[in-house]
């Protein structure tokens, strides 16, 4: 495959993908979907449905036990370690548990992906300061994660995931610890990135956000994936909300 065709290739392509941890039960079963470049998806499903596992396949932490995953046109099981590292640098991840490094302050946590990518310190200072200001943490740049509230930690984690303008942004419950206003503000940040070409997948339980933004859903149920297109979801959501009554 030439570089040009790689550029036009789907960001992610899952073909008959199943996944289990060691000898445990199958968490994901025969998953089939494609993420087009520049798309925006919500990932939904009950707790334990396999959202985090599916995300871990997308950010190359695991390989599928069956089937094939292609990222940016490359079959991940055929890639060298160096090539996988290169792909990972194009993926930003917001973890459910944030995974901030407690011995680094907010600034250095956010700067980490840039340092790994070998960006100049002067550029790092400029970009990180701008982004932390944007997420409302201009006064907490020198604070360490244990000194920050849950919401502030989450914003640091989000800033870290988007600092190097990833091609694919994956977020596991990125708005779980912030109020609705901040949740919408953060979602707008994701939207801005999406407008610049970043493909976004957000795992969330926040029905309000899903309804508000109305993007298509990757819905997981007992390990099976159902892709719900935007319009169909809007219909489904409106029926659900009508049935529940306006409270």
């Amino acid at each position, binding site marked *: 495959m030439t570089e040009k065709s790689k550029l036009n290739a789907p960001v992610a392509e899952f073909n008959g993908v199943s996944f289990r941890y060691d000898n445990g039960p199958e968490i994901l079963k025969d998953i089939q979907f494609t993420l087009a470049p520049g798309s925006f998806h919500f990932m939904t499903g009950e707790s334990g449905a396999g959202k985090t596992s599916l995300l871990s396949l997308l*950010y*190359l*932490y*695991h*390989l599928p036990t069956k089937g094939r995953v292609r990222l940016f046109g490359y079959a991940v099981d055929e890639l060298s*370690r*160096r090539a*996988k*590292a*290169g*792909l*990972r*640098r*194009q*993926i930003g*991840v917001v973890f459910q548990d944030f*995974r901030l*490094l407690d*011995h*680094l302050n907010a600034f*250095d946590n956010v*700067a*980490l*992906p840039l*340092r*790994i*990518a070998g960006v100049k310190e002067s550029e790092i200072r400029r970009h990180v300061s701008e982004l932390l200001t944007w997420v409302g943490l201009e006064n907490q740049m020198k604070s360490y994660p244990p000194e920050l509230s849950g919401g502030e930690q989450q914003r640091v984690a989000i800033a870290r995931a988007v600092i190097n303008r990833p091609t694919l942004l994956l977020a596991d419950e990125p708005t779980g610890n912030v109020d609705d206003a901040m949740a919408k503000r953060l979602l707008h940040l994701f939207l801005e990135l999406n407008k610049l070409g970043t493909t976004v997948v957000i795992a969330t339980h926040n029905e309000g956000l899903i309804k508000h933004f109305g993007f298509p859903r990757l819905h997981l149920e007992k390990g099976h994936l159902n892709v719900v297109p935007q319009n169909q979801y809007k219909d489904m959501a409106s029926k659900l909300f009508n049935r529940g009554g306006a409270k």
Partner: protein
Amino acid sequence: MKKDSIFFATDSTRLFLPWMSMLMTFIAVLILATGITSYQAITNWKQVVSGALTVQIPTYTESGESRGQAVNQDVETALTILRSSIGVVGATVISDAQMTELMAPWLGGDVAVSELPLPKLIDVTLDSANHPNLAQIKTDLAEQVPSAILDSHRMRLEPLIKLSDAGIKLIIFILILLAVTASFTVVYATRTSLSAHEHVISLIHMMGANDWFLTQKYAVRHFSLTIMGGFFGFLLALPIMAGISFLIRGATIDFIWNPALGIGGWLTLLLVPVILSILAFLTTIKTVLGYLKRFL
């Protein structure tokens, strides 16, 4: 942010590796200094004793009677034995004129040495590379020329030389053992640190750090910690070496034993912490790369 603080905010290797390196260097420097000094001494001994030996044929009996013609016969027999022995390049009788010259400082130049009870001397030139068998020469002379006396430092020093050679081999073995122990210690320290920082490494790996990014941080850090401890170990060994040199200087044979290490010796000792640090650097690289294979 310090370059290595991504991993090492709280890391036991920060104290452990310098201490290990200091101790290993201290021991290695002392052992190596002993080895270098012993090697120099053996080389000196070999140079002193390898070139020549002297055979004496007495001209008078123990009771003071002249041995007459028997002396010449003994000299001829001794020359035949010596010239036919392996490793002997030449054997010549020291003439009366040469004897007079040799004795001149004590007896003056006009003494007739033939009238003095001095033994006949045979100067024997040896070829060390051809392994002269001094024990065999001594046996042959004792059988055929019982009066002959073989005068060789080599015969007295040979057991000592063999012992010292064995000592040097032992020192090399101990140094290798120290290097292996140091490597295992570095492997242990690295693995401990990697396990303690698994969450950090996993995160950085997921962010797209390649293996070398992670490995070089560990390798450079372990190199600097080891070289720092190593030079302290080197400095610590200096007063001990000075003390040993002082003791040796008072108790050794002056023309053979030279406790001074020389520039080459000191440079070799200075290389100990450097070599140890390079060893730690390479061991760390191998250990970290092996560890990272567990990540996809």
